[in-house]
C-alpha cells in the first residue's frame, strides 16, 4: 500500500517539475537617433513614458520638468575634454504601439575649435534610476557619409556603459557635397512619385496637340527643346522651394504635401492622355516642382548650422536629383523620339498614362486617409522593375535605330 502511494506521488512530482520556467522579461527601452550636421548634432529621443514614471515617480506631463530632467541626464564632450553645449528643444508625449513615449529633440553643439563629428556622448536618462533600462543609439542622418533616412547603428547606453565615444570621421566640404549628392540621387530614385510625375510629363513631349487631342509628331529638335524646358522648369521649381526652406526654415505638414504630389502625378497622367495644358508644360512642371521641393525640404531640414554648409549641401542634393533626372531622360530619349513615330505609341502612351493615373489615385487615397493601401504598395513594388524594363526597351530601340542607319549609310555608299 505504502509502495503504491509512493509511486503515485512520485509520478505527480515528476510531472510538475517542469512548469513555468524563469526567463528574461523585457522592459521597453529608449531610442536616440542622431543626425550629424555640419556644426551640430541633433538627437531625436524617445523615452517610454512608463519607464520615465518608474524611474522618477513623476507622471511626465510637465514639459519643463522633463526638459530639466533630460539636461541633467545627458552631456557631450569633445576629444580635448571641453563640453559641448546641450539644448533640449521640443518635448512632448505621443502615443505609440507599446504605450505613450516622451518625444524630445536635443541639440549638441561643439565648442569652437574641436571637430564637430567626434564626441563622447553620455546618457543615463531612466538608466541612472532603473539600471534594467537601456537606450539604443543610432545615426539617422549623416550627410557627409550619405546616410539620409536610414539607421546606422552605434550601440546602446546601459548602466554599465553610460558613455559612447562616437567618431564619424573627418568631413570637409567635398565629403559634404558628395554625401548630399548621393542623398539627392537616392531620394529621387526611391521616390517613385517624383519619377512617375516626370515620366508622365515627358510622354506627350514628342507630340503636338490639335483639337483637344495629341495628334502630330514634333520634329526631333523641337522635342529635345521641349524636354529641356520641362526638366529645367521642374528643377527650377523644386530648387526654389528647397532654397526657401533652407533659408527660412519653411516647413509644411508632410501629409498635405505628399497628397499634393500624388495629385500632380494624376494631373500629368491625365495630360498625357488628353492635352489639358498644351504648350504650358514647363509652367506646370515649375508649379508642381515647387510642391515636390517641399517634400525634398523635409530631407534637407538637417543640413547643418552654418550658411556655407547648408549652401553646399543643398547644391549637392540638387545635383544628385538632377543627375538622376537627366540620366533618365537621356536613357528614355530613344523610346520617345523613335516611338512617337510608330503606330503603337498611341496605345503605349495611353496605357502608361492610365497606369500612372491609377497609381496616383491609390497614393492620393492613402495619403489623404492615412490608411495604408495595398494597391499603392503593389505599385511601389512594380515600379522599379517596370522602370528598368522601359529603360532597356529604350536602349534597344536606340541601338536598333543606330544599326539601321549605319546599314543604310553603307548601302548608299556602296551604290554610289
Amino acid at each position, binding site marked *: 500500500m505504502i509502495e503504491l502511494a*509512493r509511486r503515485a506521488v512520485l509520478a505527480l512530482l515528476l510531472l510538475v517539475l517542469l512548469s513555468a520556467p*524563469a526567463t528574461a522579461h523585457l522592459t521597453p527601452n529608449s531610442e536616440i537617433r542622431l543626425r550629424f550636421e555640419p556644426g551640430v548634432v541633433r538627437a531625436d529621443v524617445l523615452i517610454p513614458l512608463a519607464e520615465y514614471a518608474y524611474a522618477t515617480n513623476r507622471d511626465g506631463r510637465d514639459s519643463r520638468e522633463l526638459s530639466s530632467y533630460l539636461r541633467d541626464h545627458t552631456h557631450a564632450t569633445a576629444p580635448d575634454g571641453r563640453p559641448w553645449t546641450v539644448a533640449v528643444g521640443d518635448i512632448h508625449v505621443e502615443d505609440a504601439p507599446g504605450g505613450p513615449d516622451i518625444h524630445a529633440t536635443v541639440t549638441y553643439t561643439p565648442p569652437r575649435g574641436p571637430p564637430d563629428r567626434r564626441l563622447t556622448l553620455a546618457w543615463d536618462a531612466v538608466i541612472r534610476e532603473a539600471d534594467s533600462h537601456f537606450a539604443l543609439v543610432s545615426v539617422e542622418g549623416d550627410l557627409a557619409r550619405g546616410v539620409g533616412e536610414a539607421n546606422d547603428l552605434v550601440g546602446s547606453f546601459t548602466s554599465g556603459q553610460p558613455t559612447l565615444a562616437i567618431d564619424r570621421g573627418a568631413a570637409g566640404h567635398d565629403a559634404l557635397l558628395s554625401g548630399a549628392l548621393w542623398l539627392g540621387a537616392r531620394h529621387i530614385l526611391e521616390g517613385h512619385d517624383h519619377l512617375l510625375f516626370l515620366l508622365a510629363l515627358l510622354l506627350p513631349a514628342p507630340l503636338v496637340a490639335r483639337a483637344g487631342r495629341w495628334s502630330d509628331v514634333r520634329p526631333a529638335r523641337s522635342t529635345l527643346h521641349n524636354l529641356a524646358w520641362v526638366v529645367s522648369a521642374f528643377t527650377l521649381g523644386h530648387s526654389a522651394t528647397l532654397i526657401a526652406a533652407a533659408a527660412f526654415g519653411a516647413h509644411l505638414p508632410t501629409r498635405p504635401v505628399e497628397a499634393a504630389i500624388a495629385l500632380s502625378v494624376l494631373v500629368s497622367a491625365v495630360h498625357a492622355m488628353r492635352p489639358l495644358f498644351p504648350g504650358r508644360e514647363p509652367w506646370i512642371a515649375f508649379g508642381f516642382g515647387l510642391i515636390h521641393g517641399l517634400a525634398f525640404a523635409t530631407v534637407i531640414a538637417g543640413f547643418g548650422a552654418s550658411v556655407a554648409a547648408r549652401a553646399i549641401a543643398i547644391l549637392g542634393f540638387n545635383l544628385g536629383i538632377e543627375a538622376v533626372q537627366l540620366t533618365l531622360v537621356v536613357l528614355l530619349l530613344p523610346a520617345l523620339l523613335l516611338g512617337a513615330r510608330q503606330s503603337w505609341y498611341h496605345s503605349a502612351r495611353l496605357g502608361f498614362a492610365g497606369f500612372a493615373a491609377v497609381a496616383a489615385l491609390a497614393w492620393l487615397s492613402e495619403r489623404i486617409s492615412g490608411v495604408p493601401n495595398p494597391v499603392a504598395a503593389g505599385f511601389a513594388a512594380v515600379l522599379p522593375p517596370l522602370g528598368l524594363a522601359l529603360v532597356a526597351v529604350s536602349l534597344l530601340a536606340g541601338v536598333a535605330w543606330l544599326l539601321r542607319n549605319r546599314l543604310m549609310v553603307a548601302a548608299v555608299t556602296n551604290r554610289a
Partner: protein
Amino acid sequence: MSQGALAATAPYERSSTSGWLRWAPLAVLAALAAIALGAGLDRWRGASSRGPLDPALLHAGYGASNFAAVRERSEQVVYSARQSVARYPGEWLREEGLARALMGRWRLTGNYADLAEADRLLDTALARTPDPAGPVLTRALLSIDVHRLEEAERALARFRRSVVPDDGDRADAEALTGDIAMQRGELDEAARHFARAAQIAGTPGIGLRGALLASRRGDNLSAKRALEALLAKPRQPPALLAELALQRANIAYAEGDWDGATSWVAAARRVFKGYWLADAYAAQNEAIAGHSSAAIAKYEELARRTSRPEVMDALAHLLRLQGQPIESKAWAARAAAGWRANAALFPEAVAQHYAEHELAVGSAARALTLAQVDVAGRPQWPGIALLGRALVLEGRPREALAQIALAERQGWRSAGLFMLKADAQTALGDQAGADASRARALAINPRAADPRIRLIWFGHD
C-alpha cells in the same frame, strides 16, 4: 415424395452439408480478417488524420477537480504521514512518505519550510539506512528540485547499486538522470535518458519531458504532437490535465499563437478550478488583450491569495509597464522579501527566479550576480537568458554573445534566444548580425518583436 426420390437426394444433401462445414472455418477466418483489417484501417486513419486537439473538448477523469480539494487532501496526507512516522519512528519508508507529502504540499503552496523539513528527513533516513537502500529516488528528486545536481547524482548512483530495482523505479531514475543532463545543458544526453525511461515505462511525466525537450530545441511541431497525444488520453486526473494544458499554452506563446494560448489556459482552468498557476496565466492573457486594469486586479487577488513571489513579480512588472511606479515598487519589495526568505533556505533553488525578479523590477547588477551563480551550477538556457540579458545591461555584450553561443551549441532554440542575441549585437553596433538574429526570432515567433510580448510573464521562452 417416393423412396427413390429420397434415395436420390440424400447423397446430394450429405455432400452439401460437408461442403458447408469445410468452408465455414475459412469463412469465419475471412470475416475475422476483414474485421481486423477494418479496425486497423480505422485506427490508422484516425491516427493519420488526427488534427489539432480542440482545448474545448478536454475532459478530466477521476480525481479532485479543484485546487482547494487537492490542497485539503495534501494537508491530510501530511497529517497521516506525520502520524505514521510518530507511530513507527526510525522506519525510512515512512520518513520518505512524509518527505514526499511535504514536497507535494510545497508544490501547492510554494512554502520552502516544507521542502527544508523534507530535506532533513531524507538526509536522516539515508544516513541511517545501509547503502544502497533508503529513499534514494525521492532524495534525487528533491535535490533536482533545489538544483543540487551533484547530490542528485550521488543518490542516483546509490539507486543503481540496488540489486533488483523494479521497472517503475528504473524509469524514474532514467528520467531524473535526464533532468540532470537537461539542467546541465546536455540536451542529447537528456534525450537519450528520456527515451530509455519511456521504453521502460511510458508515464505522462516522461512523455511530457520529451515534449518539453523538443520545444526547447525549437521543434514545436513535435512538442505539440507529443503533448496533444498526452492530453487526448482518456480519464486523466484534472490536476495532470491542467498541467499539460498549461504546457501546451507555453508552446502556443512560443509560436506567437496568443489566441491558442488563451484557449488552452481556459481549458486548464475549466478542468481544474482554482489552480493558481492557471489563474496567473489567465491574468496575463487579460494584459495581452489590453485589459490592463482587469489583469492587475486578478494578479493582486492572486498575490494576496497565494503570497507567491512570482505572482507579485508579474504584477510589479505589469505595473511598471503601465506607469504605476509606486504600486510596482511596493509589490516588488514584497516579492523581494519572499525571494530573500526562500533563498535563505535553498539559495540554488531560488537563484534563477530571484535573478528574474531583479532584472524585471530590481537591479540589473544584482541580477548579474545571481545569474552568474545559477549558470555556474546549471549552464542551461533559461539561466543563460537571464545572465545574457544582465550582461547586456551591464555593458558587456561580448560576454553575453559568448553565453548565447554556448546555449546555441547546446541545442537550445527559441525566439527569445535570437532576440537576446539581436540585442547584444545591437549593443555592439552589429546591424547586419542583429537583423539576421531578429529574422530568425521572427521565423519561430512572428510576434517576437510585438511590444505585448513583454506582458508574458508565465511560460515565456
